[in-house]
């Protein structure tokens, strides 16, 4: 997918003006945030499980080569095939050639961020194969020609009125008097359209929440059951997953499962968790006849040797974006590539370069909520700060910005002068603000004052207030 991460500022400004988007985004804190907090409160071991999950994934990353070899061997033993894709292009070609070999006309897809990352749908369409997204949210954005705006709720930026309009535009057989005002009516309509697609598809493609080295199993976690229908009904099942999804054992998978759904949707567990191990066995009445796994690197092996290795622990729950004040304000599309929110701000520069994605690690207030809720305890603000440092080296900011910061730094390093100057200026500014104690217009401060007032200083500097307070305490 073509990145617009470099244009984050413009994207964000447009998003803030988009009233329909703002209405839809109001649902994020209402749903996810509260539900996660309740799920956490119901499980006293939740935070201890997060510590274990972090240590578990660190152990996997330190031995990634060996666990991948074990995983591959087990997949082969049960009659499956593992394909190694160094780049997004390699992965696309591998998937396409499997589809061609199967004589596929249509492909049904379970939700997969990795296939978004490699731009699979466009590639298949270009080769005359129709990919059909079956996760409801993914289906909604596919028919609109959009990218997901959230990693677990791809259509969170849409309102039900927009969905109704899309269905009336695209579902040709729809009678005009059919009611599509309520969410359950819209879901029923999507269900009936997609049911036929499941039954007709030649290939089913899913992602994987985990790969199990012990048994060669791939795991998907869903609520709709669309991933299961995709992988059960088609002749060929293709799993597309990145290297770091591997975990050692079934017991280890339990640890991840216990924090995944709770962090994502606040459920005790997702409705469907499926462990798939190879193709249909002798005597099986259903299941795919062929089972392929495409293992994607796409820059992850390079990350392993850097400070950014910690993002490879991510289990894609979406908690960081649900709790992020920047994401809540601008939504996912403003981030301009596949992964939005705080995890995107760290991952995107890692995968497509900081020259392109430099604005993303700057799109943070560093409030720290993302790190506080991350089930894998990824230090997201710290990693964003590292990207800011690297960006400064590679793409130095404009002269005016550097000059302003340098001047301030010079003053800050000369405390007496700093205090003297601010002591002169602050009472003047405070008086200018008048009784209101705030400015609704500031020279060069339009970006701030357009949306809210700028509070005026209280009349004395912090240092002066501190000294006064100390003196008062000494007296009493």
């Amino acid at each position, binding site marked *: 997918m073509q990145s617009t991460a470099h244009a984050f500022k413009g994207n964000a400004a447009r998003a803030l003006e988009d009233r329909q988007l703002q209405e839809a985004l109001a649902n994020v804190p209402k749903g996810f945030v509260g539900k996660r907090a309740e799920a956490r409160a119901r499980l006293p071991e939740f935070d201890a499980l997060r510590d274990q999950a972090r240590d578990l994934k660190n152990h996997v990353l330190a031995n990634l080569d060996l666990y991948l070899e074990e995983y591959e061997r087990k997949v082969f033993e049960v009659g499956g095939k593992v394909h190694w894709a160094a780049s997004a292009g390699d992965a696309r070609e591998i998937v396409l050639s499997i589809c061609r070999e199967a004589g596929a006309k249509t492909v049904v897809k379970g939700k997969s961020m990795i296939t978004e990352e490699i731009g699979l749908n466009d590639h298949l369409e270009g080769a005359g194969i129709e990919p059909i997204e079956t996760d409801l949210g993914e289906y909604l954005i596919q028919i609109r020609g959009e990218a997901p705006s959230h990693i677990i709720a791809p259509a969170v930026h849409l309102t039900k009125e927009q969905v109704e309009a899309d269905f009336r535009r695209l579902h040709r057989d729809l009678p005009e008097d059919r009611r599509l005002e309520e969410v359950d009516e819209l879901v029923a309509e999507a269900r009936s359209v997609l049911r036929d697609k499941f039954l007709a598809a030649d290939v089913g493609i899913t992602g994987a929440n985990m790969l199990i080295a012990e048994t060669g199993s791939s795991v998907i976690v869903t609520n709709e059951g669309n991933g299961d229908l995709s992988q059960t009904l088609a002749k060929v099942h293709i799993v597309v997953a990145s290297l770091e999804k591997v975990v050692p054992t079934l017991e280890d998978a339990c640890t991840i499962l*216990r924090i995944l759904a709770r962090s994502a949707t606040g459920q005790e567990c997702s409705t469907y968790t499926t462990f798939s191990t190879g193709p249909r066995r002798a005597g099986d009445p259903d299941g795919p006849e062929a089972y392929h796994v495409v293992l994607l690197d796409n820059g992850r092996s390079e990350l392993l040797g850097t400070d950014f290795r910690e993002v490879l622990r991510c289990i894609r729950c979406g908690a960081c974006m649900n709790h992020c004040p920047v994401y809540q304000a601008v939504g996912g599309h403003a981030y301009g590539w596949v992964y939005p929110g705080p995890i995107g701000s760290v991952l995107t520069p890692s995968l497509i370069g900081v020259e392109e994605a430099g604005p993303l690690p700057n799109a943070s207030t560093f409030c720290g909520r993302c790190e506080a809720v991350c089930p894998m305890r990824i230090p997201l603000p710290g990693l964003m700060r590292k990207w800011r440092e690297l960006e400064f080296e590679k793409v130095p900011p404009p002269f005016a910005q550097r000059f302003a910061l340098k001047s301030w730094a010079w003053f800050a390093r000369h405390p007496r002068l700093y205090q003297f100057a601010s002591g002169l200026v602050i009472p003047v500014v405070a008086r200018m603000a008048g009784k209101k104690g705030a400015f609704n217009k500031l020279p060069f401060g339009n970006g701030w004052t357009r949306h809210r007032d700028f509070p005026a200083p209280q009349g004395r500097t912090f240092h002066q207030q501190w000294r006064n307070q100390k003196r008062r305490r000494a007296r009493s």
Partner: protein
Amino acid sequence: MSPHPRDGRDAILGRVRRALGVGAEDAERRVAIQKRLYDHVRNLVPARTKGSADDLIKQFKEMLESQSAKVSEVGTADEIPELIAKELRDNNLPSRLRMGDDGFLVEIDWDRAPTLEIERGRSDGHDPVGLSHALVGVSETGTLILISGADNPTTLNFLPETHIVVVRAEDIVGPYEDVWERLRETYGERAMPRAVNMIAGPSRTGDIEQTIVMGAHGPRRVHVIVVEE
């Protein structure tokens, strides 16, 4: 397939090893990993998974109900046909169901509900009701464990609008880890059936305005029958 699949593999593993600063012939690491793969050490297991058999059954039921499944208890398997027949009548559903060749389900005396029409085998998407036997019920999250095979075709779990699942009370365990122990007894070390489906209620979606709706793609109704005997 890809132009040079072996190249892809060796190049990727080579890059991983360079990044980690390790070699391929790292005997110490290999021994440690093998041990981990065979030892089945349990990580932290939540305390809620411990309790008497009755406690676990109660938890299993409550969790499933909180996840919008219906739960009934019967004393013996022979009560199942009449219960299902009544359930289908009450919900205005056709009294026709499909199941696999599962030994426990086949043994049931279906003549007790003569109105029930029973078909066997996989579903092609036209069955209103599917019936399955769960190998295990996990109490910690109210989760049913269904195993693929001729006994319980996977298509029955997802295509019918109503899914009825029978589980024996004695098969209800506390934590997920107990499931793996059971499966290793049946399938052996480092082996799994083709599909292990963990199911915790009806299919649902929150993808439109975070409003939860049942029956996204799979069953709209899940009815769990716990058999005491």
